């Protein structure tokens, strides 16, 4: 699935990934391939991104919102 992490200052991340772990407003949750469409609020925390080669990348965010639709994940973050 395709992930984009966008902040008001710039696009932080854009690429295909396997799994994403997000700091949801009511607890951390993960998103895998073919996730149902969701809009979720995020709180301050860390986004953990795992790509096909099991490389892990992390991003600190200061809250935001995530939208998932058709294997397209868009994270609007304040960082």
């Amino acid at each position: 699935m395709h992930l984009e992490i966008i902040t008001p200052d710039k696009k932080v991340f854009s690429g295909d990934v396997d799994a994403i772990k997000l700091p949801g407003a009511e607890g951390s949750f993960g998103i895998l391939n073919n996730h149902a469409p969701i809009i979720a609020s995020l709180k301050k925390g860390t986004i953990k991104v795992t790509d096909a080669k099991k490389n892990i990348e992390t991003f600190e965010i200061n809250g935001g919102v995530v939208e998932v639709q058709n294997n397209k994940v868009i994270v609007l973050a304040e960082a």
Partner: protein
Amino acid sequence: MANLKEVRNRIVSVSSTQQITSAMKMVSAAKLRRAQDAITQMRPYASKLKDILENLSASLDSSDGQYSKQRPVKNVLLVVITSNRGLCGGFNANVLKAASKLAREDYKGNNVSVLCIGKKASDYFKKTEYGIIGSDMPRGLNELFDELTFLNVAPVAEKIMQVFVDLQFDKVELIYNQFKNAAVQITTTEQYLPVQAPPVTENKKVGEYIFEPSKEFIVADLIPRSLKTQLFKALLDSHAAEHGARMTSMHKATDNAGALIKELKLTYNKARQAAITNEILEIVGGAEALAG
């Protein structure tokens, strides 16, 4: 007849002014490019945020949220965005004119206060009777342009939201120069608070989404974010517009200096020739007097 030395001095001073204006033009052109890049960078964020919000508020009545509640207007806050420096044509004058007009005519009889971003606005409103707020910000409002990032702008937006929620002000308007292209700036007045509901667009397919934790929560979380983004966008626009305006006015100044130099050179050469002719006449006259 023009004094030779005087004309020469003027030529020197005009050409050094021309050097300065053409250098300023170059600097502004470079800064304009960077400012435009910043606008392009934030556009995806702003448009996506708007999408999500529209999507949500289409199915949700948000007209009584704390940021969208309409109150009888008594106290009005004008957020005036100008530049820190001059030499950019009518850029600042236009905004200040629009702001004073708004305060004098549209909000006649209301209590008007201003929040100035940019030195030109604070210098101007210091001399008026309007109350100035925001001078207690930890980071000076005029230093915002030195480092224009979302992180620095957010506290200002929070402060504005705060005074609105605290019932200090019933309406907040933004006045700034919108960037259209390098040569054109549009003086814009925009209602900031209370939030105006986005026009409901049809054929939006809502309801397919899962909302986590709830629609209401997300909307309440997103509205402050979109307000911050709106202010940030206004600042970026104003910043780009400032450099555009400066570039254009410096270009004109350089051209004018060129024309002036041309004219002065003509005067100088004419005067020089007249002086030489005079001298020859004197010599010939003297020689003739000796021979005679």
